[in-house]
């Protein structure tokens, strides 16, 4: 084998290794995104649960953004380490729900909209957005059915 053949082999090997490494890197990046979305889903669900579990009269319209790495539960507990790269926006608005099968029926309540985000290439990226309606129940309205 000449020196030239050796050099060519080395170049070919290096290119193959670079391709392999970049494909693994791409796979890791995709998986990191998938994990971030899974965590974002639990963080969003957690905030929705906070609101669904509250008594109706303690809910108020808000628009709050927790910056990246500062998410807490309503009781003030900090989220654990893996959530450090996520932030969360919670919008609660007063809304009425209409029921298609019951014309004229309006169910008062709050629309809870939670968006979890991170940063990607210097810009904010939305990972998960969940919406849930919290109706005012008959018991909470004080009306006897």
């Amino acid at each position: 084998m000449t020196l030239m053949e050796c050099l060519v082999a080395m170049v070919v090997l290096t290119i193959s290794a670079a391709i392999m490494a970049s494909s693994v890197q791409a796979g890791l990046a995709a998986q990191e995104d998938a994990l971030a979305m899974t965590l974002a889903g639990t963080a969003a669900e957690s905030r929705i649960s906070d609101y669904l579990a509250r008594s109706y009269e303690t809910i108020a319209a808000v628009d709050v953004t927790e910056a990246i790495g500062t998410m807490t539960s309503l009781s003030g507990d900090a989220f654990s380490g893996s959530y450090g790269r996520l932030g969360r926006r919670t919008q609660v608005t007063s809304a009425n729900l209409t029921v298609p099968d019951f014309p004229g029926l309006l169910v008062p309540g709050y629309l809870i909209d939670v968006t979890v985000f991170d940063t990607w290439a210097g810009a904010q990226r939305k990972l998960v957005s969940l919406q849930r309606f919290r109706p005012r129940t008959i018991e909470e309205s004080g009306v006897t059915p």
Partner: protein
Amino acid sequence: MRMTRCTRRAFTLIEMLIATVITTMIAATVIALIGGLAGALAIQDLRSEAIVRGAGLQSHLGLLSLKTRMTLALSEQRVLLWLPAETLAESGSGSDSAFDRIDLVDDELHWLEFAQEADESWSLIEWTVKAEAVPAGESAVYFSTDSEFWDNLFVQLRDTDQLRRSPIAVNLAPPLVAGVAAAAPRFIWQSADICVNRSIGAEFAFVALEGDAELRSDMRMESALAFFDRHPICTES
């Protein structure tokens, strides 16, 4: 007879040295690449596990919280969920009779427990009553807001082999809370008062070892009790 003379010459020392250097460089590159790949695969394994098992746990917790009307006992390592056998229409009527009696053979009680295994990892276990193991005439349990009562019932049923142990997740670890590893995975809730509490959740971590390095993914999941229904005894007390 004519003698032929071999015209091929041997490698020179310089050629051998160059070849050795090149081979060493290639070997070093391949070893580094394999090492890097092994590390990357370990990270991929952990992430895949966290994604799949995390989603599975969230789904299971969601299903349980959909069926649960009250949490009867709350502690960091064990919670008791009450899933009444009565229909919503019956229990929603406010009738005391629909609630007074908990029937062990009707799968109304589900304990979730973080249990430490012999290898020091943690498992999330769901304990349910084995209907066939409950002696005839001993299936009625009357409602109590005393968590000690439920803990004693759990120990009694477990020690007499009347509980079915179903692992929901294994190889769990304590989560990092505010940068510090907690002593154990734990359950979380909205209120320690069972007559008020309307949510249940869990905090834990998936951990894998890559050489000396620890790879971890912390999880915190919560779910509201969709059909929370306060037992009449809460109002009476």
